[in-house]
């Protein structure tokens, strides 16, 4: 069993790698998923820009992407990773599949959060002469903010889980550490330490998400 300082030294770099992966994957997943979620809400039946064709196509794309097991999606997306970051191995390369796997999740989270907004509010905004853009950004998004914050918290936690899997096929981070030391070298203490770091991370993010959601709801 290695000494404690050795363990901390071993954990430091993978922890930062995980944070790096999670941060950028969340960012890109949101950039892709947020507009997608909004489009789903406004084009669905009875939405402010109802469009059956657009809705069905996007709804299908989201469902297909979400049906892929993440580990398969990563392999399928190797060519894309190579195209975007020049390699398929490493922390930066795994951001591509992570973001693409999480984007449809973000879209569903946004969709369900915005759908919860009382239709009466949309109706009132329409009655005042609001444009679709005003309804989206002045009514739907602000009113759904607490649910959006909680949904994003869920997204980040999911990405942490996925990032551990990405580590298993050469993505680095805590998952990679746990597999290499804990699984291949039978160093259970490293495995447990890696899991503990992930648990702490998840707890902190959930706590911060809950606190923020409370702050933005009136």
């Amino acid at each position, binding site marked *: 069993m290695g000494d404690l300082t050795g363990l901390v030294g071993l954990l430091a770099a993978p922890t930062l790698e995980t944070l790096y992966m999670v941060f950028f994957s969340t960012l890109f997943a949101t950039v892709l998923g947020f507009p997608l979620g909004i489009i789903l809400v406004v084009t669905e039946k009875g939405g402010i820009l109802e469009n059956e064709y657009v809705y069905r196509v996007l709804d299908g794309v989201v469902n297909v992407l979400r049906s892929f097991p993440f580990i398969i999606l990563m392999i399928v997306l190797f060519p894309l990773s190579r195209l975007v970051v020049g390699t398929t191995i490493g922390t930066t390369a795994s951001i591509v599949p992570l973001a693409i796997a999480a984007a449809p999740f973000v879209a569903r989270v946004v969709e369900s959060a915005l759908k919860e907004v*009382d239709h*009466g*509010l949309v*109706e*009132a*905004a*329409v*009655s*005042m*002469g*609001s*444009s679709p853009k*005003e309804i989206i950004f*002045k*009514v739907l998004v*602000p*009113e759904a*903010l607490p649910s959006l914050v909680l949904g994003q918290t869920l997204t980040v936690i999911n990405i942490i889980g996925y990032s551990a899997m990405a580590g298993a096929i050469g993505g680095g981070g805590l998952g990679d550490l746990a597999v290499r030391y804990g699984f291949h070298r039978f160093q259970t203490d490293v495995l447990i330490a890696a899991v503990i770091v992930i648990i702490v991370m998840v707890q902190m993010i959930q706590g911060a998400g809950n606190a923020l959601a409370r702050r*933005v*709801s*009136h």
Partner: protein
Amino acid sequence: MIEIKNVVKTFNSGGKGLEALKGISLHIKPGEIFGIIGLSGAGKSTLLRTINRLGEPDSGEIRLGGTDVTKLAPVELRNLRKKVGMIFQHFNLLSSRTVSGNVAFALEVGKWPKRDIPRRVAEMLELVGLSDKADSYPSELSGGQKQRVGIARALANKPSVLLSDEATSALDPKTTQSILALLEDINRKMGITVVLVTHEMGVIRQICHRVAVLEAGRVVEQGRVRDIFMKPRSRTARELLSHLPRMSYDADKLPKEPGKPVVSFSFNGGTADQPIISRAIKTTGAEINILSGEIDNLPASKVGSLTVQLSGTQEEIAGALSYIRSQNVETEVIWNG
């Protein structure tokens, strides 16, 4: 002002069409408070929503000060909506914004210059008596206060028409009174046309000038409020009137004595103030026993109704009735045996 012609609307539910509006025509005059009343499902809210096209009519014409609303393109429609305020049963305030923020929303949509917004918001909150709640969130307000915010928001863009969709239906009677008083005050001061949907005859009685009664998607009667209160022709109007706390007579409790007919008189405007009954007694010799009666103060006039039992000889009774009829009082023999 508002001209509704042959408006038809059908809802598709489960494959079969439900005709909600079956060819409705109404004329609403500028500056009046026009009531639309009916039982639930009669189509009154559906009709109101066609005026600002929150609901699209299938056919028909809706003219608002000359423009046919049904023919407007999206951008024109949005501009028109800024001039047609609307208030709702469940207030529909943004929970993410303060009272001020909710009123400011309407002004932002109305493209007011940013620097003018705070002044206009303060003005509107003063109008509805909520200046001290400017920084509160809707969740901290009572129902009546929420509706006041709704009214401030609806009037912020200086509309010429205010649509009220069951605006007092979620409020207790006392709050209802104060909201109606506010609407009446606004109507008088600003000359705004108010179209009000309700299922409560009390609301119609308190502030409406004219009313249309809807029954299963059709207008079954319309006219001045006092006329409909005095002589409701449709079943709906009679049923809704029967829910009012006061009634001129209770059919089961009327005395039924042979030769002593029971008659109901309806007075309006000028006749409500005249000593018609005592004159009838003096000139014909008939005896008139008053069973029940009431006088209502409507916005435009006084309306009274009286239920009496007549006794005397047949000539005296007939004479008294014909004298009273000659004084422009509507009479209805309720019982005669």
